[in-house]
């Protein structure tokens, strides 16, 4: 079966000052996969996502979403940043943060209305945070904050989701809740790309994987390429994991 390519990255190179952080990345992500990006600290995992999304400016390279430049396809893409990237003492409520997911479709100046509020409440319901909708965001636990971020992306109703370490610092309950939502997204035909740190759970959670360490080491189905060989190439040590079939 010929799969559509959801995200295509060509010759992407990113550098801070002289040191390249990403070097000549070519990547094709088929539609409908749940993909992990794995690699050691400093491998450029977050940088890859941020460059694809235009938050960082690459030195070279291009990104296309369903064969069109990313800038024309923004509304198809949703982003879940790292939880630690914002100040959670900001004076606002959980519902308000989730509503921000609707701002993109609203465009400049227009205010969110009842329709947007309804969508936000539905997203809160999906992540199990409806009872906390009016809670000041600093009063939420780390796992709850992560769910709020996830809900904000769900509101965007996108086709492709980029998530930067959504499992970082959350408890087992939240991790299961999140992965169930990701699997639901995949079932609905969405493409989900996740920066992931826990190698043990890769075969269980994901069906596609990209190994990254400044250069792209490998990308493909987990069952084909998630092996000692690629792990060693990526992490530089003989990293043994048991692959659960």
């Amino acid at each position, binding site marked *: 079966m010929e799969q559509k390519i959801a995200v295509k990255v060509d010759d992407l190179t990113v550098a801070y000052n002289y040191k390249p952080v990403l070097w000549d990345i070519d990547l094709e992500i088929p539609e409908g996969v749940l993909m992990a990006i794995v690699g050691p600290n400093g491998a450029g995992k977050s940088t890859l996502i941020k460059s694809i*999304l*235009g938050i960082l400016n690459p030195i070279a390279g291009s990104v296309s979403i369903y064969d069109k430049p990313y800038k024309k396809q923004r509304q198809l893409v949703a*982003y879940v940043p790292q939880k630690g990237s914002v100040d959670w003492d*900001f*004076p*606002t409520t959980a519902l308000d943060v989730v509503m*921000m997911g609707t701002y993109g479709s609203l465009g400049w*100046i227009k205010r969110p209305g009842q329709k947007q509020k309804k969508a936000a409440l539905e997203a809160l319901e999906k992540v199990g945070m409806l009872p906390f909708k009016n809670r000041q965001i600093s009063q939420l636990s780390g796992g709850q904050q992560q769910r709020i971020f996830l809900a904000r992306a769900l509101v965007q109703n996108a086709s492709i989701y980029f998530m930067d370490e959504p499992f970082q610092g959350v408890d087992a309950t939240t991790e299961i809740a999140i992965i169930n939502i990701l699997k639901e997204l995949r079932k609905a035909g969405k493409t989900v790309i996740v920066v992931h740190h826990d190698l043990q759970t890769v075969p269980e959670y994901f069906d596609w994987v990209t190994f990254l360490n400044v250069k792209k080491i490998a990308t493909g189905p987990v069952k084909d390429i998630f092996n000692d060989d690629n792990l060693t190439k990526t992490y530089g040590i003989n990293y043994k994991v048991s692959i659960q079939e």
Partner: protein
Amino acid sequence: MDLKEYFSLVFNDYTLRTITLGTAILGAVTGMLGSFAVLRKQSLLGDAISHAALPGIAIAFLITGTKDTNILLLGALVSGLIGTFWIRGIVKKTHLKSDTALGLILSLFFGFGMLLLTFIQKQPNANQAGLDKYLFGQAATLVESDVWLMAIVTGLCVLVLLLFWKEFKILLFDADYTKTLGFNTKTIDILITSFIVLAIVLGLQTVGVVLMSAMLLAPAAAARQWTNSLAKMVFLAAIFGAFSGVFGTAISASQNNLSTGPVIVLVAAVFVVFSFIFSPSRGLLFKQIRFIKNRRDLELNKTLAFMHQIAETHEDISHPHTIKILNNFQGYTKGTLKKLVDKGFVQLQGNMWSLTKLGYTTAANLYNQQTDSNE
């Protein structure tokens, strides 16, 4: 003139009314915009901008030779903006952190401004006296046209805030995410920074270069203590700023020769101190009270849990025990025992105690309750 006299005069006396209106409007607009600076963790930006404005005032005077306020403030605006963009440039192009960039621009521009001021004072031009009033401000020089200018800028600022409220809010909270939604964050950023520069420049005449940043920060810092909503915070900061202006002017007018700018800043500081101590949710006082109360509750719960342990060893939960066994237990005092009786958890008979049914079930669910309230 005492305060009472001031408030009766303020509606009739032209000069007093002008100054009071001017400082109130100034306080309101700097309070509003200050909220954004504080939430962006750019508190020092205001300080840098106001200091960067000084050479602009001096150069405007050197070029035109007049002391017309509007021309001097135009010079201040230009050099304030130059300073702001240099700060942005330094942060972007070098490895220096923003506090370093702010400090660098602040001292560089201020030093240059002072140099120009002393140069001007040495000139044989009779017109040159009085430029140094921009250092600490002189509210008494406000005239009606100045107040109109402030009112127009404030009105414009409110309009822009209302129009771009959603964009400002999301940029403050999560700039990267804002970019992915397709908003041009640079445009939003420049819009908000320009208004901050404009407000600062307008305040130079009244409060002066040195103290201007307090007008930006103090009302916002005070307002943050009282609310968890951005809209309410901006509104409150405007109110606090306006009142600082009015009270500051009143105090300085009623106590002869007190300079208005510093008094306004001190009044704003009083708002801050009061808010830090007395705000119900974030204030130090209530935090301390809650802390003590929580500790007491915990002590009470520990005693109750201990009693529950003892009661559990008997089939009949309300089997009486002597009070003496409690003496070995650390958290127990006569006070806690009395409180437990008051709550209906424990019955006393002579020197014997027994748990009531309510006390028993409460003790059994103590831990569950606590996790519930933490959810």
